[in-house]
């Protein structure tokens, strides 16, 4: 019985540690990804300016990047939202909690519809 308890305790410890490690890894990846996406956004904007015209393929790429960033931010916002105790969660304004990602989704939508409007043959 004692051995069984020790084994369960060790298993629990290993599980908690690996969950923590995985969580840290996800966080690190997300932070890194957000950095890359910001850089990508800057580069697409620069390229668009460089070419001097809003090319539909670049507009679409920008929309993709915005969407990707919105999704990552939503994951983060969701995680924060779920971390709030259930009793308090009801009081939180959902619009506010997911404000940042919503902004990126809207911008992505605007960009993609703009690229289709501007270039009907695209």
């Amino acid at each position, binding site marked *: 019985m004692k051995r069984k308890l020790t084994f369960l305790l060790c298993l629990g410890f290993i599980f908690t540690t690996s969950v923590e490690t995985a969580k840290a890894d996800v966080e690190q990846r997300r932070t890194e990804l957000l950095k890359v996406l910001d850089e990508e956004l800057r580069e697409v904007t*620069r390229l668009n300016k460089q070419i001097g015209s809003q090319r539909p393929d670049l507009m679409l790429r920008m929309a993709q990047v915005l969407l990707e960033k919105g999704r990552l931010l939503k994951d983060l916002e969701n995680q924060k939202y779920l971390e709030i105790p259930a009793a308090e969660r009801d009081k939180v304004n959902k619009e506010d909690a997911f404000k940042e990602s919503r902004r990126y989704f809207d911008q992505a939508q605007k960009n993609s519809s703009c690229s289709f409007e501007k270039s009907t043959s695209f």
Partner: protein
Amino acid sequence: MKKSFFSIPLLLSLSFGMNAQASVQGAWKIYQSGDKSRYPQMVSELIQDKMYFSSIPFIKEYLATTNKVNDAVVDKVLDQLITEVGVKQFELLPSNILEKSSAPSIRYILARKAFRQAKYDLALKYLDKPIEEWNPVKPYALLLEGSIYSVSKKEEQATRVFKECVDVAEDHIKKEKNPDRLRQLKISRDYCVVGIPRSQFAIQKFSDAYSTYLDLEKSSYIWPEILFEEAWNSFYLKDYNRTLGKLVTYKAPVFNYIFNPEIEVLKALSYMEMCLWDDSKNTVEAFYTKYEKDNDSYKKFIDSLGKDYKQYYGLVKEHTEGKLRNNPILNTALASVSRDPAYLELYSSFNSGRDEIERMKSVSNDRMRAVLNENLRESLNTQRNLIGSYVRGQLQLYAAQIVKAFEDMSYIKLEVLSKRKTELYEDMSLTKGSRARGDIAHLKRTDKQYFWTFNGEFWADELGDYVFSLKSECK
């Protein structure tokens, strides 16, 4: 004895002066008669007197007014004149006027014009009639013919013609005494040498091209620009370390006049192919830092000059005299133009034209001198404008190259970022191991290549032979 020693050159110069006067007098008689059909004869007289630039308007007028030239003597006059003043003065004439003559030089000019318009069959038609090997235009005509075959991807014919071109150019080089023409002949021969690897590259025979590019001697005037082509060839051979090694040669102070933003693009691309994302990104960033600030003012400056060719001519002239501008891009661009073979050809013709001003003073017939002076002024103005126009074209081309390089760099950076994203999404370790950068183990070399370490100094005999030893990080 002493007296007779001095009298020989005196007599010679007197007799030359008398001959010269006789030639100018003969020309004057023809001019006075007003018979334009005899203008070639008049030009022939003037050529004897080395009045090349002042003859140009006469021969142009003759070509414009005559129906058809069917005279070998006229062809000879045209060949002689074009050899002295260069082809550009005559390239300005419309094709229908040039087509009246079948002089080899004129056919060469027509072929050049057709080649530039990508009318390759027409260009070959102009060169179809054989040109004698001794003709001064022969090596250039062969270079053009080889280039036509090369762009048409007819490698066999191109190689045959380029080889013939090298032989013919060598023969001409042996006989040539004029230093300017000698330089042009050597440049033309060297372009024929690299014509062979270029045509092999065009049909993707990269290994063959790699070997034949080595036939060009490092002492060649055109070697620095060809090194870049070699770097591309190595890139297509997937030998990215060699590509980077060839490109690093351009950092040698002796090449600081080279203007080619694509060097940085190829560097970033090579790093990218080796999955060295940070190096690729750093190259892109370094490019932005180097060009972004000065490019706008460079573009504004050349646009502000409009089509004022005189100013463009003055720009390069002042640069060669040591005047530096505030814009580093402009300085490198001007340094590059001033060493450009085509610019040098135009400029040396212009200088020979200016020598005629002195010779003109010996013409005793005032009225003839006035006519010739007017002609000379007209021809030299045209030549100066041709130089200015060439400089303008080059500076505009460089501006376009920068814009294109910016675009390419952006695409490279986006590609690098996209690859980095894939790595982050896929289950790849985020912790970067220590980067052991260069290692001789990653070096690819043949038995004919030797290994030496680089100690930070560029030695002339090593230029172009550097190789990186980076390990690809592609997973």
